[in-house]
């Protein structure tokens, strides 16, 4: 109960800061609109207002403050505007509609899941190779690290163009960009997990004359499970970012990335913010779902106490 109150307090504080920030962000636009509508604005001409501070303007024209939370195309939309937009584009739209965030969310989610599956599979395979082969340890790991230093926003268009030229388009290029971001945490976590058994555990298997594959299946793999789930949670969030980034350079017509892009083309800030929140909520749900699976699996394995 105490925790809930604390969390709600923090959220309330953030909302208050957000509303407050809307005032200086939107005041100039609001005053221009008010002036056109015939209201008395201090100072009266837009030219004079240009160089004045936003806070000063808001104080001089306090009648206009409520309007900063109600603009059609604000620089910074107020929380309730974003909430209403989210409500209207999820619950009140048919999911087949091109304006439904659920439809766009699903387009992004499907690419995310495919990319996450590819990235996780690749990550686990690489980790197994790295742990079992010294050559792979020395050759793959540096490249995996280098791969993550390249800005994905620079790489994504090239991946899309190259794949398009060999006839691959649609969900696959997005999934590959998404996989590109998500394999890395899985490799790092899995290598650490597969190497987590200590010397004594390995000696014990040696005294049984266990084969390498027995050592892998009976010791290394189960020991790596807690590490794997930690990596998967980071990986799935990275996957979502990858899928959204993959939608930006193609001028894709569907997906949360496309919503972000369209919103910025047409100055629809409310649409941008609601797409951002949709992405954040989606990521939170994915991470939360993985957390539940983690709890269930570890409990079944007897590792959660």
């Amino acid at each position, binding site marked *: 109960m105490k925790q809930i109150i604390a969390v709600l307090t923090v959220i309330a504080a953030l909302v208050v800061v957000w509303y407050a920030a809307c005032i200086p962000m939107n005041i100039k636009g609001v005053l221009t609109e008010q002036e056109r509508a015939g209201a008395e604005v201090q100072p009266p001409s837009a030219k004079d207002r240009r160089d004045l501070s936003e806070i000063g303007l808001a104080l001089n024209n306090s009648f206009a403050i409520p309007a900063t939370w109600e603009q059609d195309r604000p620089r910074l939309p107020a929380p309730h505007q974003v909430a209403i937009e989210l409500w209207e584009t999820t619950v009140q739209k048919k999911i087949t509609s091109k304006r439904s965030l659920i439809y766009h969310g699903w387009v992004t989610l499907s690419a995310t899941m495919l990319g996450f599956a590819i990235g996780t599979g690749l990550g686990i395979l690489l980790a197994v190779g790295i742990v079992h082969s010294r050559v792979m340890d020395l050759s793959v790991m540096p490249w995996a690290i280098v791969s993550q230093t390249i800005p994905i926003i620079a790489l994504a268009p090239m991946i899309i163009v190259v794949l398009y030229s060999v006839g691959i388009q649609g969900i696959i290029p997005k999934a590959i960009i998404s996989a590109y971001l998500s394999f890395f945490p899985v490799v790092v976590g899995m290598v650490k997990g597969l190497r987590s058994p200590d010397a004594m555990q390995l000696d014990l298997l040696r*005294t*049984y004359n266990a084969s390498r594959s027995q050592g892998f299946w009976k010791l290394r793999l189960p020991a790596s499970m807690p590490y794997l789930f930690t990596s998967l949670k980071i990986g799935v969030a990275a996957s979502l970012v990858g899928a959204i980034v993959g939608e930006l350079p193609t001028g894709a017509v569907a997906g949360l990335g496309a919503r972000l892009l369209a919103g910025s083309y047409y100055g629809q800030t409310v649409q941008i913010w609601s797409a951002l929140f949709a992405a954040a909520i989606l990521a939170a749900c994915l991470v939360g779902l993985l957390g539940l699976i983690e709890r269930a699996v570890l409990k079944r394995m007897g590792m959660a*106490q």
Partner: protein
Amino acid sequence: MNEAGTTVIEARNLDLTFQTNDGPIHALKDVNLAINKGDFVSFIGPSGCGKTTFLRCIAALETPTGGALTVNGMTPDEARRSRAYGYVFQAAGLYPWRTIAKNIKLPLEIMGYSSAEQDERVNKVLELVDLAGFGGKFPWQLSGGMQQRASIARALAFDADILLMDEPFGALDEIVRDHLNEQLLALWARTEKTIGFVTHSIPEAVYLSTKIVVMSPRPGRITDVIDSPLPKERPLDIRDTPEFIEVAHRVREGLRAGHGDDV
């Protein structure tokens, strides 16, 4: 094979030097020892005397750099591959994701026993270490002493004639340790295994062993081998008898002599 007096482990002029960044470390020097079938042999000495290293050589976890070592008439590595011994480490090392029964099944699974046979053996060894009924528990649900007993059960589950134990009770308190020592003697009497036991407790070594090997460090070597005059039947209060005190005294003298002017 079952007659007493058959040598199962024999070391002749055994040498082991570790190459480290600080130069070579002479872990074992000129070790000569014969362990007979059914012996309970304790290795005692201060840290760095090579007692654990010697045990690991027998288990083929280390490779000697000189001399000869045979286990059941084979090289240690051949003996390891024929699963000649069970090894109990200082920590229980049970897999947290396996129940006690499944932990004991681990070597049986690896060695390819049928699942009916696995169940039968698990029940047998659980009873042997007094853990019957705990098979379904996870390791964290057991006390440290019970975990160590489970790890002994795991080493007993397959038919190895030799049991190698590296300070198995080192991390336990004295009351638990006394209790486990008693149980270990009973278990040894029932199973007639040959046991190699590393410890740095004099009373533990004297109480348990038929043969006490006193070792000293730098370089690791054997300074004394004492054949215990104590009877095979040993209640805990045998530790107050003059014979026991005399053997303990001789072990202490051996340790002191080995230390030289280091102390």
